[in-house]
């Protein structure tokens, strides 16, 4: 018999076979599985494209005319900024039922597709627009004032350093770490889900820049005293001292009291 057949009873044989089977099935699936509806190519008419995408991905919950249903609120008047935020951070389409839509790492749509859907929703009624480069330019911004505004308006949910905080019934305000300026701006502007709306009459565009400068500063500044332990406050500090502080001291005490070799 040949070399392969001679090894057919090798313990690894079954593992290799399983692996090959998985690879085969996985590849077949990704080749043959139905893809989500996509435009074959971005057409000149963004709103129309957007509408198509909307009907395919969003209408089930938001209604055929985006007027809202039991499962999802109306999108009339939410503006391009909302779409850019929700779809751009992967929160929408909602992967499944839960207390809130969570940021996802995998974004289902390309930038053009998101822009198309945003144009469509913006066409329904006037609403907050996607922030421009100028609105996001934090050069010369006053981070100290931004900090004051942040502490009055944002820290109670997102925590003093933007580390996130709990809301009722399992909802939460997420961490701001790693969140792009554009997303923060849009969130303030549109008030996604539990977050209130901070329109431009509440926090002016200039102050929004200040807030962005402050938030960026949190993550760009050095940790003055060492590890920040997640910036969660006394809870993590207490945990640290019990586990490491007391732990090390007890280990030393055990060594101290034990007999030498």
């Amino acid at each position, binding site marked *: 018999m040949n070399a392969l057949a001679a090894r057919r009873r090798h313990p690894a044989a079954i593992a290799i076979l399983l692996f090959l089977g998985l690879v085969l099935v996985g590849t077949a699936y990704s080749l043959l599985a139905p893809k989500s509806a996509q435009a074959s190519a971005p057409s000149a008419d963004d709103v129309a494209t957007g509408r198509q995408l909307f009907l395919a991905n969003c209408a089930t919950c938001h209604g055929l005319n985006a007027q809202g249903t039991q499962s999802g609120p109306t999108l009339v008047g939410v503006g391009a900024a909302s779409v850019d935020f929700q779809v751009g951070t992967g929160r929408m389409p909602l992967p499944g039922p839960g*207390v809130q839509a969570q940021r996802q790492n995998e974004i289902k749509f390309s930038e053009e597709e998101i822009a198309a859907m945003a144009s469509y929703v913006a066409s329904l009624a006037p609403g907050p627009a996607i922030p421009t480069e100028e609105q996001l330019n934090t050069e010369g911004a006053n*981070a*100290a*004032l931004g*900090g*004051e505004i942040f*502490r*009055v308006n944002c*820290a*109670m*949910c*997102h*925590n*003093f*350093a933007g*580390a*996130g*905080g*709990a809301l*009722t*019934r*399992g909802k*939460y*305000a997420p961490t701001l770490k790693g969140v792009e300026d554009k997303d923060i701006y849009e969130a303030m502007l549109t008030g996604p889900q539990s977050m209130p709306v901070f329109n431009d009459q509440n926090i002016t565009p200039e102050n929004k820049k200040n807030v962005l400068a*402050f938030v960026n*500063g*949190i993550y760009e*500044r050095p*940790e*003055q*005293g*060492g*590890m*920040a*332990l997640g*910036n*969660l*406050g*006394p*809870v*993590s*500090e*207490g*945990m*640290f*001292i*019990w586990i*490491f*502080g*007391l732990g*090390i*001291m*007890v280990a*030393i*005490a*055990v060594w*101290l*009291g*034990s007999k030498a070799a």
Partner: protein
Amino acid sequence: MKTAGGIAGWLDDRTGGAGFVSFLLKKVFPDHWTFMLGEIAMYSLIICLLTGVFLTFWFVPSAGQIVYDGSYLPLQGITMSEAYRSTLDISFDVRGGLLIRQIHHWAALLFVAAITVHMIRVFFTGAFRKPREINWVIGTILSLLALLEGFVGYSLPDDLLSGTGIRAMEGFLRSIPVIGSYVIYLVFDGPFPGEAIIPRMYSVHVLLIPAILVALFTAHIVLVFVHKHTQFPGPGRTNTNVVGYPFMPVYIAKAGGFFFLVFGVTALISALVTINPIWAYGPYDPSPITAGSQPDWYMGFADGALRLLPGFLEFEALGRTWSFNVFLGSILLLPVIFTVQGIYPFLEKWVTGDNREHHLLDRPRNAPVRSGIGAMAVSFYLILFFAAGNDIIAIKLHLSINDITNFLRLSIFVVPPLAFWITKRICLSLQRHDRDKVLHGRESGTIIRTADGRFFEKHEPLDAYERWPLVQQEVPEPLVLGSQTDANGVAAKHARSERIRARLSHFYFKDRVAPVTPAELAAAHAHGEHEAISPPPETSISVEGPPETQGLASPTSEREVVKRAPEKDL
């Protein structure tokens, strides 16, 4: 050496202190790592005192409002109190200032943690018994003072987080019936926040409480020297001796070295891990607030109590508002807990009727009810403690704070009794396991196969030194009530308290596992004599029983020792 002798002579000429020095230096201290826990606390206190002195040179205890102009840019131009500004300066503009500040705060956290584990050790080993009840009470007061000192200390920088805590304190004081609203005006010298609270807290933190702490812990240590340290039971250790190493030179070296180790570890942690980043919290203002508002860990149990106490405990009666939802969890909680803690030695003494001196520690398993009570107290504390972190737990474990709160509200009633029962049962089982070990030896892991195919594990008998700690314990019996009435039928004085006492004593000692006696050991050896040496003979259906029953003593003798205490006249 000559100069040292010269100086010593000079001093002795003027104090006659040679005798005292000898008294100190010849003291013997037993060696066990659990005896070092109190030292961690003591050294942490000293570290706090030392670093605290440095901090007082730069900290400005004033609530006066100024505009910040230091080197921390994110707060440039912000109005804040002098206290906050001076803390920022310590952190950013004084060389090594942040290091000293962090050592101070980390040492404070470690101080209270060490006090807690030390107290738990003392409790579970019964080291609070006569003559050390005074030291237990002093220790209780020290632990309460440590909590207050820490609370006031971290509130001094007047940052958003600790300021919110002071705001909550004002709410606690308000809830005091009758005098609450007067008390807040007294404490704050006017409406909240006022300008008096920072300097007053400073005075309390730097002068009042440290003075009492130092005085009390000196008394605490002096008493340890006078009483001599307790020791765990072991061969050669009796209730009338101390076995260990002399203060000079061994313990001076070990304890002194340990001070440097505690300090060094604290310094290392302070170099590498940020604590209390007040610059990130911002100055205190009654309007903003941060998510995750908690006090430092050691006040967590009180914060947790406030989160768990339901709102219906506040009610209006007689035209007045009775805020027991706040009052119980804040003003009343600490005095009640610390009073219960402080009187425990006296309660146990009353229940057991034991008036002798105890210098040998109890192995916790040998005091099942006391250990159960301790477990109950610890679990009660832990539930309150975790409640304070319910929002952090919620975001980290993706749970609902409402569910966590309700779960803990239920647990506070269910878990402590359960913890008591489980701990007591575990202690009794461990005692039985000890009995087993003495009677039948240690499992050696060597399996012996007999010629007729049976397997049994060889047990190594314990030598006298190994055996002693397992058999030395005293197992008291419940007190028995004397006659309740005299010859004429008149009820005896204190009849009712005697009845309660007898019931409590029964509760403490009804389940007992007596230690193995030499007679029982001899009997066990007679039964299983051949077990450890050679396989049993082929025809092993003997009176003594086949090898596999060697692990069990004969049924009658085993049952006999775990029984209700016979009523004996004392």
